[in-house]
């Protein structure tokens, strides 16, 4: 580890902390439906949308209605993308004349982008037409992110409202987030990327003559526009197969740094918005402190392991850290940081190959996702996932102050506990259940490239990534088979919506409750004690659930490496 490396990491966290409140304020304006400076220009467009679609943005929805509208919206988008991919060969903007995608791959990809996972069983530049990329996929990058943030808003309202029967309007939330937050940010962001050298063209490819005189065809396309929302919306689906390790997606050290920042930015801001929504920004800071602490622990371990390198190689006379699978442009620190950021945040973009990390270095990204993508997490999804853990933490430990547990003034009772447990149990059920299926069936066993515990890690990582809606791949797993495409598709769908529905039910139940004013006897949910408790609960619940699988995967892998045995 180097001083430079640590300065990069600390600067990264420092800049984000500085951005938290401004972004949080902006998000809070959208949360409340207040006017922003952008309304002067975009206000008429918003109003036009509502008129066109016959939506009354002031019509409040119950949690059930909110959930149903959200589900219908997502289902329609799923079929839309499926259709585009199946019909790709017949549709325009297909300069390289790619044919239709097979059924299983279309299903997997459509689910993947709808659920904000962006798991890619295909290589982008060799599979997708520009129309598929822009209309079939990028649209989801915006709308799945907007859906996530809208859901977080709905959940916040559950905490913030008193004796209320509604939690907002899904259509209004989604429209405002897209129009006033995602689009303007992405336009600026995309221009920055273009200036840094990222291509933005409808041309299919360009032929170049390399230094050796060989002819090479370089695929081009509308990369910058997709790249911006890929990061901001924690989507992670790259235009190219190599994702952010590809020089056209991520050309410079500066773009690399900005990409990492943009993965976390909205997630950081939302914690502040939550605090503000429930009347005390310190509530938000306490949550953010817990997230950042877990994140820093992860970064430390991965960076340390990657910098320490592989003892087997050291013995062979190759000193230094582990550079396998990393871009020389970025080096160990930036790659380690990127890997932890992208997995903590449910983004899934990569600038290095996690499969090539050391066993423990690669375990952190895996464990990050297994914690439920709540360490900052996906836009919206991270904070509502974390709040589910907060409900659990407050219930277990809150009794210890001698009161019925309360969180931000709302009593946590049987119904909330039941729903929170339901939502949290989905994760281990699907991750471990599907991994179990894959590790005993023939169709599953042909997937992993490597043998032994490393191969097991590959399977485990794939399902973890899918259920956690992360979308990053450990690589090494041949996933474009009917078995994996199908099972992973189902896993992504469950991982997204089987958490959302109970979460919205909690929002509805909380909104209906009375507010209990805080007193000296109330459970304190702002200080360092609460933050440590949150960290403890997240780590213990995640750790206890996944330790056996981690022991058989990365931990066994690591110990074997120490013993001089590589997989």
């Amino acid at each position, binding site marked *: 580890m180097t001083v430079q490396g640590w300065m990069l990491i600390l600067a990264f966290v420092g800049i984000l902390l500085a951005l938290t409140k401004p972004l949080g304020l902006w998000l809070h304006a959208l949360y409340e439906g207040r006017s922003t400076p952008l309304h002067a220009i975009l206000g008429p467009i918003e109003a036009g949308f509502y008129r066109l679609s016959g939506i009354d943005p002031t019509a409040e929805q119950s949690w059930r209605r909110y959930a149903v509208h959200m589900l219908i919206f997502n289902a329609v988008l799923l079929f839309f993308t499926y259709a585009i991919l199946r019909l790709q060969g017949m549709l325009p903007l297909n300069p390289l004349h790619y044919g239709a995608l097979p059924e299983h791959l279309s299903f997997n990809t459509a689910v993947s982008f709808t659920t904000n996972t962006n798991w890619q069983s295909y290589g982008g530049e060799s599979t997708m037409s520009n129309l598929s990329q822009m209309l079939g996929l990028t649209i989801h990058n915006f709308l799945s992110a907007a859906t996530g943030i809208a859901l977080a808003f709905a959940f916040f309202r559950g905490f913030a409202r008193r004796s209320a029967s509604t939690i907002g309007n899904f259509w209004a939330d989604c429209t405002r987030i897209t129009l006033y937050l995602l689009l303007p940010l992405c336009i600026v962001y995309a221009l920055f990327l273009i200036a840094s050298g990222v291509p933005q063209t409808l041309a299919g490819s360009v032929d170049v003559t390399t230094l050796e005189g060989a002819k090479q065809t370089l695929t081009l396309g509308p990369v910058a526009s997709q790249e911006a929302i890929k990061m901001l919306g924690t989507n992670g689906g790259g235009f190219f197969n190599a994702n952010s390790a590809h020089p056209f997606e991520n050309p410079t050290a500066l773009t690399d740094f900005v990409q990492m920042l943009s993965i976390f930015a909205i997630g950081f801001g939302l914690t502040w918005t939550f605090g503000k929504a429930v009347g005390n920004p310190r509530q938000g800071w306490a949550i953010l402190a817990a997230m950042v602490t877990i994140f820093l622990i992860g970064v430390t371990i991965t960076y340390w392991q990657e910098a320490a390198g592989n003892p087997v190689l050291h013995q062979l006379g190759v000193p230094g850290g582990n550079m396998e699978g990393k871009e020389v442009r970025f080096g160990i620190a930036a790659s380690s940081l990127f890997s932890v950021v992208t997995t903590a945040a449910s983004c899934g973009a990569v600038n290095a190959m996690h499969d090539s990390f050391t066993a423990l270095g690669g375990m952190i990204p895996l464990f990050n996702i297994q914690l439920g993508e709540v360490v900052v997490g996906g836009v919206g999804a991270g904070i509502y996932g974390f709040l589910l853990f907060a409900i*659990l933490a407050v219930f*277990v*430990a*809150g*009794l*210890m*102050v*001698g*009161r*019925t547990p309360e969180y931000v*003034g709302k009593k946590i*009772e*049987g119904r909330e*506990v*039941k729903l929170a*447990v*339901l939502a*949290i*149990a989905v994760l281990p059920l699907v991750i*471990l*259940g599907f*991994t*179990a*299926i894959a*590790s*005993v069936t023939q169709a599953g*066993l042909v997937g992993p490239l490597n043998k*032994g*515990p490393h*191969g*097991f890690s590959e*399977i485990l990582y794939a399902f973890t990534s899918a259920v956690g809606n992360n979308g990053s791949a450990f690589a090494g797993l041949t996933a474009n088979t009917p078995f994996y495409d199908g099972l992973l598709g189902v896993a992504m769908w469950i991982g997204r919506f089987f958490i959302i529905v109970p979460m919205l039910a909690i929002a509805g139940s909380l909104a209906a409750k009375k*507010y*209990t*004013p805080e*007193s*000296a*006897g*109330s459970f*304190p949910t702002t*200080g360092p*004690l609460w933050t440590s*408790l949150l960290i*403890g609960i997240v780590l*213990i*619940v995640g*750790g*206890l*659930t*996944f*330790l*056996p*699988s981690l*022991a*058989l995967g990365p*931990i*066994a892998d690591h*110990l*074997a490496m120490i*013993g001089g045995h590589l997989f």
Partner: protein
Amino acid sequence: MARSAQKSVFTADLIVPAIGDAFRKLNPVELIRNPVMFTTAVVATLLTVLLAIGTDTLGFAFKLQLVVWLWLTVLFGTFAEALAEGRGKAQAASLRATKAELVAKKLKGKGDNYENVAASTLRIGDVVLVETGDLIPSDGEVIEGVASVNEAAITGESAPVIREAGGDRSAVTAGTRVLSDQIKVRVTVDPGQGFLDRMIALVEGAERQKTPNEIALTILLVGLTIIFLIAVGTIPSFAHYAGGDVPVAILAALLITLIPTTIAALLSAIGIAGMDRLVRFNVLAKSGRAVEAAGDIDTLLLDKTGTITIGDRQASEFKPVHGTTPAELAMAALLASLADETPEGRSIVQLAREKFGVTQSSLPHDAEVIPFTAQTRISGVRINGSLIQKGAVDSVLRANPGSGETPAAAELRRVTDEIARSGGTPLAVAQDGRLLGAIFLKDVVKAGIRERFGELRRMGIRTVMITGDNPLTAAAIAAEAGVDDFLAQATPEDKLDLIRKEQQGGRLVAMCGDGTNDAPALAQADVGVAMNTGTQAAREAGNMVDLDSDPTKLIEVVGLGKQLLMTRGALTTFSVANDVAKYFAIIPAMFIALYPGLTVLNVMGLGTPQSAILSAIIFNALIIPLLVPLALRGVTYRPIGAGPLLARNLAIYGLGGIIAPFVGIKLIDVAVNGLGLA
């Protein structure tokens, strides 16, 4: 806290019957109420069957030990519950004996003709006669007569109390004995619904329903069990991938150590013990829900008299006005009070004697006493044609219209305002229309009450003093006693409004009361403690009854509620925190055959894989009886504010819960290896 001496938990007369009950409670119908323990029992049964069939490679002795410890885990849980129930059972038995011997003298029509019938045949509306020496056969209301009653059977207090028709002392309870006189009682409950029945059910824990918080906690425990079932259930597939397999017995051991057996085993014992503490504190809660609500109380409404101040006001000074001499005033006050048998009246007489040496101790024969009525709010005496009046200032002024605008009246108002401002109650004295002055009645705030309110404040509870006094007096006493707020000149309607207002603000309110006019407020409050001396209406309306009729107890009741919730939280945290060490014991033992490198996870340095697994399961079982005393006694509640309290409990039960099993499992492992058990 409790009056009766804390009985030790482990005495033979409690333990022996509890062991029998522990086995009876293995009945699946009863066991399924506790899903975690039910799961444990199912796993234990499965292993017992596998032991008989013997299909895997593990040694018989090892598996036998596992089976035994699994069953012990279940039995320790049922034993804890049985032990908690046992403490109430003895009390219930003696109450039942009292009930069995009840015979009623049921009145036939008008007059005193009665027939002897069994108390169990009485219905609502029947009227019974109870004479000296009789036991009152049923709960009811005195409709005729006055009697002194010994209520020791239910309150444990042997000093007799007065029960009389009309007013706030008309309720009588079955099983109590009339010591003198006779009364007619109208029965107010049907058989099996009475106070005695309720008390028997309560102390026995027979009618025990799970409280809302208990239900929520059970859901959490079931959720954790499901998560661990998934975590353990998928291991065989993972092991299969690694080219090996894990014996069912070991998977079972891992599952049972991970699921929260500790808290699940103790959960109902905690609830029963919580109710039992309240009972031994002579407070009966009609439901466990009320006890939980007590822990959540935000606002406490306390009657001034008897709770904050010593019940009786004492005369402390004579304040003459407009040329009247102090001795003159003292003499008039004395004459007006000689016939007044209230403590206030007596204190006036005493003050006049002490300060002015007045010796007269009885009124002349021809004196006419004018008694106090609620309408006039004046009492007095007419001696030789001279009228002396004593009463509330406004009333005395109103009764003497001519004096309204005189300088004497103005001075009286000034003096009485001063008295009120300093927390006293002024009584005006007038003789034949002339205002003599005021008597300073002083409210004496109970010693130590200020500290108690400080404690409550640190617990986050706001105290509101309820008083019939005027706002000036109330403010002064409120300041002296250190309450947060007060409600002066309170009528029952004001009280009810205050409760509603607090509840609309999301706060939970507790109060106590005894009169019929308190009933609506008692019913509205989240925790309403009715005094046992109160009316039947009040006792029905409240959700707790204080047998000692001590309003100060409300504060302790809140503490008991908090203790109950805290005990649950502490043991849940402990139970979950324990899992960390158990993983470190079992995971390396389980997978060592697959990946020998995993032995580095054996941080405790346990002897062999088998001894590690056995030690974990033994620790998991033994921790239950070890924690039974804590579950029954309850975690100590300290009024130090939520933050410090949480820090303290997290350190003890959270951090302690992580560390303790590392030590415990290691020690057991040493013993297991030393004894050659595995």
